[in-house]
C-alpha cells in the first residue's frame, strides 16, 4: 500500500492524527498518548494494513517532550509506517503498553523505561532491564549527568 493510500485509510479512523513525510523515508503518524493503543491495535488487526511486525521501538528525548517512535512493517504487504507518540510530562511520563499487540514490545519497553523513565500502563514486568534497581536517573535523557562515567567533548 502506498503512503498516500495509508494516510487516507488511517486518517479516517481517528481525526486527530497528524501525518508527515518530510525528513524521513517513511510515513510518520503522530498520535496522542490517549489514542495510542487504539491506533496500534487497529494498525495490527485491520486487514488493509496488517502491521504485524514491530521492528524497532525507540525512546527519544525531544528536549521538552519525551517520546517513543514505533517502526512497523507488514510481513504480508511489506509496507512500513512510523508511529510517533510524545508526552510532555518529564517528571512522571506514562504511556500505554503495546505489549499485548506485539510481544517483542515487552523487552523494548523495558529498555525504554530503563533509559528514559517512561512508564507503561499494563506492562506485565516493568522493571529495570540493563541497569541495577537502585540506579538513579535515566541515562539516555539529554539532561542526564554523570560526572564520573561521562566524558563530553
Amino acid at each position: 500500500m502506498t503512503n498516500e493510500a495509508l494516510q487516507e485509510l488511517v486518517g479516517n479512523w481517528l481525526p486527530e492524527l497528524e501525518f508527515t513525510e518530510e525528513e524521513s523515508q517513511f510515513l510518520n503518524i503522530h498520535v496522542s498518548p490517549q489514542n495510542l493503543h487504539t491506533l496500534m491495535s487497529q494498525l495490527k488487526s485491520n486487514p488493509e494494513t496488517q502491521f504485524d511486525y514491530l521492528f524497532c521501538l525507540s525512546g527519544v528525548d525531544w528536549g521538552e517532550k519525551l517520546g517513543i517512535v514505533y517502526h512497523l512493517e507488514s510481513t504480508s504487504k511489506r509496507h512500513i509506517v512510523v508511529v510517533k507518540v510524545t508526552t510532555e510530562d518529564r517528571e512522571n511520563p506514562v504511556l500505554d503498553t503495546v505489549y499485548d499487540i506485539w510481544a517483542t514490545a515487552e523487552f523494548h519497553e523495558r529498555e525504554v523505561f530503563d533509559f528514559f523513565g517512561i512508564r507503561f500502563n499494563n506492562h506485565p514486568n516493568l522493571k529495570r532491564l540493563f541497569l541495577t534497581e537502585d540506579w538513579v536517573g535515566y541515562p539516555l535523557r539529554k539532561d542526564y549527568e554523570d560526572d564520573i562515567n561521562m566524558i563530553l567533548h
Partner: protein
Amino acid sequence: METEVVNTNFKSEEYFINMGPQHPATHGVLRLLLTIDGEIIKKVEPDLGYIHRSIEKMCERDSYQQIVHLTDRMDYLSANINNEAVCLAVENALQLEIPERVKVIRTIIGELTRISSHCLWWGVMGMDVGALTTYFYGFRDREMINDIMEETCGARLTMNYNVPGGLMLDIHPNFVKRVKDFITHFKTKLPEYDRLLTGNIIFQKRTIGVGILSKEDAISFGASGPVGRASGYSCDVRKHHPYSAIDKVTFNEVLKTEGDTYARYLVRIQEMWESLSIIEQLIDNIPEGEHRVTTNAVIKLPKGEFYQKVETARGELGVYIISTGTKNPYRLKFRSPGFSNLSLLNHIAVGGKIGDLVATMATLDLVIPDIDR
C-alpha cells in the same frame, strides 16, 4: 488466629537457579534466572546489562566516522555487517553515489563474515550439546576467513573496514586468491559438518522438537535471521530490502517450517552454502574503480530521520538516526537482532529441561554485547 504465609511466586516443588552471568552456556555475561521444577523449566527471566557500554549514548557525542568503530563492538561476530549498516545509513542520508566496486566488496566481505560467524556458532553449538570436538573444526575454517580479513582490513575481529563513503583501504592483492582457496576448502569441510553433527542420532534427538517457535509468535516477538526463517517466516532483509550488491546475485532464502532447534540449526548450515554461492558469483566480477568516495572531513547529516536495515549473521540490524543537522546524531538507536531473539527465550524454553534450554539458546545464537550494546 494464625495466618499462613504463602509465597505466591513459587509452588512448593519449584526452586530457583542462577544460570550465569558466568556460565559456559550463556556465551558471555548473560544471566538467566530460572525457575525450575526438578529438571523442568517453568520460567526463564533474562537479566541483562553486565556489559552494557551505552553505545547509543556514546554515539550522541561522536562523529559519524567514529560511530562506525563502535558498532564493531556490538555484534562482534558480524562486525563488518554492522559497520556497513551505519555507513549505508550515513551514505543514504548524504545521498552519496557509492562506486560499484565498493558495493561488491562490501557484499563479499559481509558474506564472509556471515560464514565466519556461522562457523563459530556451529562449533559452539556442538560444544553446548556436548560434542567438544566441533569447536575446533569450526574454528579451523573460521581461521581462514580471519586471515583473509586480517590481510585486507588489518584486524581479525573488530575490523572497522567500512567508512562513510566506501572502504578504508582497497582490497589486498591476495584477497581474491585467498577467498577462492577458502571456497574450495570449505566446500569439502561443510559435508563433514553434516557427517559429524547433523546426522548424529544423539544430536537429532537432542534438537528435533525442542524449543518450537510458531510463525505467528516469531513475527510477534520480532524474531529475525535464522531464528525467524526456521519458523517459516520470510524475514531476510537481503531479499526484502536489498542493499549493496546483493540485488546482483541470485540466492535462495532458506526457509523451514518446523521452527524447532533442529530447523534453526539446518537453516544456518544451509545459509553457509548460500553465502558461499553469493561469494562465488561476485568474486570474479569485482569491478574496477575507486574504493572510496571522498567525503567532508566533518560529516554533517541533513536534518531528518534515517533508518537502515541490514541482515547480520544473527538477523535484522536496524540503525535509526535522528539528525538535527549537526556533526553528531541527535539520537541513534540500534535495533539489534539478539535483543528481540532473546525476548522469545522464555516463550520457547518453558516446559523443556535444562539440556533443552542450553540447546535452544545455542541456536538462538546470542551474542551478549549485541544485546547489551
